[in-house]
């Protein structure tokens, strides 16, 4: 993985091969878990970074649930390598990984990602079919069991924000739900999107403040400050509904409802010129600055057990 080009976009096969290589290089630190199969039958993989023998409290990070947000999968690859590099070198990070496990799902929507490489670069959703409709796919960030089907998602299968026929109808979502539920000790859950330069916390489907709003707000402030310290990139932060828009059935509203207090979603770097087509030269700076925010959240999670 030292020769892998982190400053380029890669296909699903290349990313999956990278994951295998990383596991082979660090068998005592990294393992690959298959948490399910996509609608089209692709494997859904999560990397587990662990220095223990039994399941510890854990941090979850996912990238690429919206397939066209390529800088997120590319950042996920960079994070994976960074974890293996910094463990044992960076004292803060080493302390985190000596106490907690980290799960990293780099390609959260493999069918959609493959579709962006083969047929339609602008594809966002899953690739599941809806009986009675010619339109394909469900927005996997509207398919979670938290305010499912309420305002802030579409009931139209042709819409990019179609919520699906029922909560967890998408196997890509259900696989994570089952994994998180079975694990039971996920303490921070961070879902990464692009672009807009935002760090968001619950709720998305209702205006009522989350019970932990004050702490989440303080932590967000610290995280975006750390992020900005590298290249000056400014992020806004706040609850989903107040900062961007009402969004029902979203990932972190479900994780928060499961008791995962540190539930956040990122919208990564926006240069104002490229949107989802962020040039590959931006991948490493984007990942680097995001890592600083992630570290802040991970360290806070370590120091504030619950």
């Amino acid at each position: 993985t030292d020769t892998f080009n982190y400053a380029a976009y890669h296909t699903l096969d290349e990313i999956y091969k990278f994951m295998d290589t990383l596991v082979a290089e660090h068998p005592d630190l990294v393992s690959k878990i298959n948490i399910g199969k996509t609608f089209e039958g692709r494997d859904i993989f999560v990397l587990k970074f662990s220095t223990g023998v039994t399941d510890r409290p854990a941090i979850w990070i996912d990238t690429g649930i919206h397939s066209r947000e390529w800088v997120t999968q590319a950042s996920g690859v960079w994070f994976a390598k960074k974890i293996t590099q910094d463990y044992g070198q960076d004292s803060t990070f080493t302390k985190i990984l000596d106490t907690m496990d980290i799960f990293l799902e780099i390609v959260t929507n493999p069918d959609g990602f493959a579709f962006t490489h083969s047929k339609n670069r602008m594809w966002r959703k899953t690739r599941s079919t809806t009986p009675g409709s010619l339109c394909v796919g469900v927005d996997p960030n509207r398919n979670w069991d938290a305010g499912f089907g309420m305002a802030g998602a579409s009931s139209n299968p042709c819409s990019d924000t179609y919520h699906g026929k029922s909560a967890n109808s998408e196997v890509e979502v259900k696989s994570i739900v089952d994994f998180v539920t079975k694990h039971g000790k996920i303490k921070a859950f961070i879902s990464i999107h692009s672009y807009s330069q935002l760090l968001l916390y619950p709720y998305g489907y209702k205006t009522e403040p989350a019970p932990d709003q004050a702490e989440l707000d303080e932590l967000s402030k610290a995280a975006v400050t750390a992020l900005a310290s590298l290249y000056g990139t400014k992020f806004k932060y706040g609850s989903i509904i107040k900062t961007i828009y009402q969004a029902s059935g979203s990932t972190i509203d479900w994780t928060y409802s499961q008791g995962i207090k540190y539930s956040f979603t990122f919208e990564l770097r926006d240069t104002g010129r490229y949107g989802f087509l962020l040039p590959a030269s931006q991948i490493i700076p984007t990942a680097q600055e995001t890592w600083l925010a992630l570290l802040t959240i991970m360290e806070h999670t370590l120091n504030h057990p619950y």
Partner: protein
Amino acid sequence: KEDFVGHQVLRISAAHEAHVQKVKELEDLEHLQLDFWRGPTQPGSPIDVRVPFLSLQAVKVFLEAHDISYETMIEDVQLLLDEEQEQMVAAQTRALPLS
């Protein structure tokens, strides 16, 4: 492969709530086949929308008629996709001797 030749991405600036509502009207016009990369939310927040070539005139006329300002964020989506593809191929070629 889906062809995005001539598609533009417009960055729309909604100065006040009435502008936001007007852009929401656009969002509902399915025949325009607009792809909102960043939807209308609140005044002051940028709205980004990919507009197919055949809908460009209608969308721009609509925005100008309602005095809603916009700029072209991406002139031709397909050109960027072609560049992206070339970069990926070049990166693969560079990586081969090392692997």
